[in-house]
């Protein structure tokens, strides 16, 4: 019943609108305005140009100013300061052009609206003027390019030898992280053919370096130390995006990628800076990867370097958590594996402490 009433209402509204349209058309014909070269609508449109310009610039400046803190993200990495600086320089340059050109566009539209008896100025070209506005943008853009290039080259340069290497792997729909372990500080080899329900990373257990690798549920990072994220994907494309660290790099199956950066604020520092005791850094996925694309969130914790080392030392190795896999370790390396993985240590340690 309700739907029928709505339908009748809509129908009546459409009929009224159509009637209004017919009436106005007929009035135009009677008045002869439809034969005129330019009707009064021209003035209305010209005035609306100005109105639109003033109104929308008003909105633009008001929103940009009032909500500045809402739409800008705090920065917590060294290169992030640099890229944000470039962003704001570009904003300043383009902002001026944006306002100036739009103002001219709408103002000229208004100012030079049709006036009876006037004639437009025949002004087909002006080489000097055109050269000017070819060369000036070219120079400004070159400056932006070179500052950008410098930053880009720094960001993408080789990571230093002592960078903290951590592996992250995207899959449908989550992230796995792998640390090289405290004993050898080397990530073990992997092969996608070895992946199974437990060995999610496809770790190659014939490689000694893999025995002490561990895989926590969150990404932990040290503050003030260069981190090299080694990025890969297991099934489809994903992309590691850590908004507050200004980090983004695709995870590609079959082609490992990497991104290096230095965090500058611990989680605690960021919490107090933002006045939000709940704040947590996080990773999200920015390359469409299927049904759960929007839910690929991973918490990131940034520690002081001491806390970080302590945290690392506490983590049980993967092999220790999955002792069944010792069988895959070649017989001659099994003892080494046990030692590196910390299997059987606990009782000894316990005894020692007693």
């Amino acid at each position, binding site marked *: 019943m309700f739907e029928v009433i709505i339908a009748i209402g809509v129908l009546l509204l459409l009929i009224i609108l159509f009637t209004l349209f017919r009436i106005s058309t007929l009035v135009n014909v009677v008045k002869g305005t439809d034969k005129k070269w330019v009707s009064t609508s021209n003035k209305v449109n010209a005035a609306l140009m100005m109105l639109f310009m003033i109104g929308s610039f008003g909105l633009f400046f008001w929103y940009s100013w009032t909500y500045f803190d809402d739409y800008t993200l705090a920065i917590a990495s060294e290169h992030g300061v640099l890229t944000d600086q470039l962003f704001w320089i570009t904003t300043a340059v383009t902002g001026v052009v944006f306002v100036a050109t739009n103002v001219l566009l709408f103002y000229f539209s208004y100012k030079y609206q049709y006036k009876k008896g006037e004639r437009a100025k025949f002004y087909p070209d002006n080489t000097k003027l055109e050269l000017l506005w070819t060369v000036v943008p070219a120079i400004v853009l070159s400056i932006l390019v070179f500052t950008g290039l410098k930053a880009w080259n720094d960001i993408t340069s080789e990571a230093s030898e002592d960078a903290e290497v951590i592996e992250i792997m995207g899959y449908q729909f989550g992230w796995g992280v792998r640390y090289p372990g405290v004993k050898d500080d080397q990530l073990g080899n992997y092969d996608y053919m070895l992946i199974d329900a437990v060995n999610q990373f496809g770790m190659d257990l014939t490689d000694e370096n893999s025995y002490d690798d561990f895989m926590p549920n969150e990404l932990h990072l040290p503050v003030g130390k260069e981190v090299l994220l080694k990025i890969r994907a297991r099934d489809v494309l994903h992309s590691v995006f850590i908004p507050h660290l200004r980090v983004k790099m695709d995870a590609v199956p*079959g082609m490992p990628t990497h991104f290096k950066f230095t965090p500058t604020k611990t989680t605690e520092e960021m919490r107090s800076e933002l006045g939000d005791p709940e704040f*947590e850094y996080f990773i999200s996925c920015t390359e469409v990867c299927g049904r759960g694309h929007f839910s690929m*969130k991973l918490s990131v914790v940034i520690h002081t370097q001491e806390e970080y080392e302590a945290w690392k030392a506490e983590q049980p190795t993967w092999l220790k958590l999955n002792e069944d896999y010792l069988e895959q370790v070649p017989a001659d390396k099994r003892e080494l594996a046990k030692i590196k993985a910390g299997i059987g240590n606990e009782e000894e340690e316990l005894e020692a402490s007693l």
Partner: protein
Amino acid sequence: MATADIHLTEEKHHDDHSHDHEHHGNFWSTYVFSTDHKMIAKQFLITGIFWALLGGLLSVIFRLQLGFPEAQLEWLRPVLGEWITPEGKIDPEFYLALVTMHGTIMVFFVLTAGLSGTFSNFLIPLQIGARDMASGFMNMLSYWFFFASSVVMFISLFIETGPASGGWVIYPPLSALPQAVNGSGLGMTLWLSSMALFIVSTLLGGINYITTVINMRTQGLSFSKLPLTIWAFFLTAIIGLLSFPVLFSAALLLIFDRSFGTSFYLSDIYINGEALPNQGGSPILFQHLFWFLGHPEVYIVLLPALGITSEIIATNSRKPIFGYKAMVGSMLFIAILSFVVWAHHMFVTGMNPFLGSIFMLLTLIIAVPSAVKVFNYITTLWKGNIRFTSAMLFSIGLVSFFISGGLTGIFLGNSAIDIQLHDTYFVVAHFHLVMGSASFFGLMAGVYHWFPKMFGRMMDAKLGYIHFWLTFVGVYMVFFPMHYIGIAGYPRRYYSFTNYDTFNSFTDLNMFVSIAAIITLGAQFIFLFNFFYSIYRGRKASMNPWNSNTLEWTTPVNPGHGNWPGEIPTVYRWPYDYSKPGAKEDFIPQHIPFSETPESNFPHEDEMIKLEGDGDRDAVVIDDKK
């Protein structure tokens, strides 16, 4: 198909020809399998309008999800069926399908076929003074391949596993593996088949446009006298001809990977508890191939709109377009550069960073000709005598979008800044303004401007104004706020932001955007009414309702087969002699010889008079022997 052979010979011949060909088509050959460029243009236009409406509707459905994540959408079940989950929400996979199909439809079916297909077909023969396209038959095939492609794409919307859902860029492995997402099953197969047909259509059309412009210009119409519309269509067709085949190869290799077990794009994949045997392929290869079309595609979409706008702004400012040569030069420069900037879509895909630096440099260079175009448009308005027709309003709107959206390209083209902004709403805002909305406004401007020549009637001006203002304000309200959302780091193609604290602060702004999108779509129905009503009931148009200079306005109100009943006019001057000092009227059409306008000629034009007389027949030698 005699039309193509008989152009431009002796006067008598023309007369015979046009009488021969009047009114002897039946319904099928006139309206369906027509080889007349004007009818084919209308076919493209109507199909394009259908797709635009559908693409717009899809976007409103996903805007409902983004703007009102808590809303009950049970009422959509009669239309969407199982795509509404039992809880009354949009299925997350269907959300991706919506985004994918919205992009595909808008980029290819509306702004490529709908825009180039309509206006290249309609305007090239009319503005260069030709009886029809070089090959009317190929032109007809071009439309029917497009139609077949449309049918396949449309069918894919209704299959059980859903249409393609890997984003309009269909990056493998997602698009290659049906086990990764349902849309990569039959939906993707149909998508690829449809695109293959679409590419055939584009190539058939493009070859025709290029051939026609090169070979069939009327006497006196040298390239330096071509209207900017034709320049734009010509360059667009060349770009398309060079880049679409690359998309075809990308699609073909993807088809091999999907169906025949090759590994062009696949390597080291473990999915659904199974390690796939494919090794050695590279997903990045696909991205290179895709964007080798994908970036020129942006200009395929945009250049015709810019050409149309140049013509309309000059006509309605009653001024010559400022810097004609610079306008042509910058289009030429853009066309060339468009082929060497593609990898700026790939800065953070793991591509070698050194390549990133090179593409950043080339990308920012392309901003220079774009800037020149904007300044030239603005200078054309300066000291004009502007008449705000609906077409003029949409053209001014286009310039504003081109500025606002183009400037954010300077951020994204800078690889260092792009790290943060890549694949966020900032990108969405950028390309929707500069490519989507600008080109859409070009399309609208073109329809309003050339409607009288297409249908012999006028569209209602006031409805046009209302349509413009609602759409113009609406588009800015939809896309401008997305910049803020993007700077805040919101990623694209997200079904929902509710499980991120940081990404959950813009619910009000997202709601605002969604409401604006619904209003903007609603405003398009004003246009639809105006368009279809005016075809039958609009006020009768005169031959040259806008007092414009180009050749199409010398044809009768309803140009018949062959366009000009008599001889094709000869061209003596460039198309922008508006408000020439000393002239009686404020416009002098291209076919008026200098000898008839001694009062307004410049000294070098007086010289031209000598060449006009007997030079007519010999000035341009056109070989009609086939």
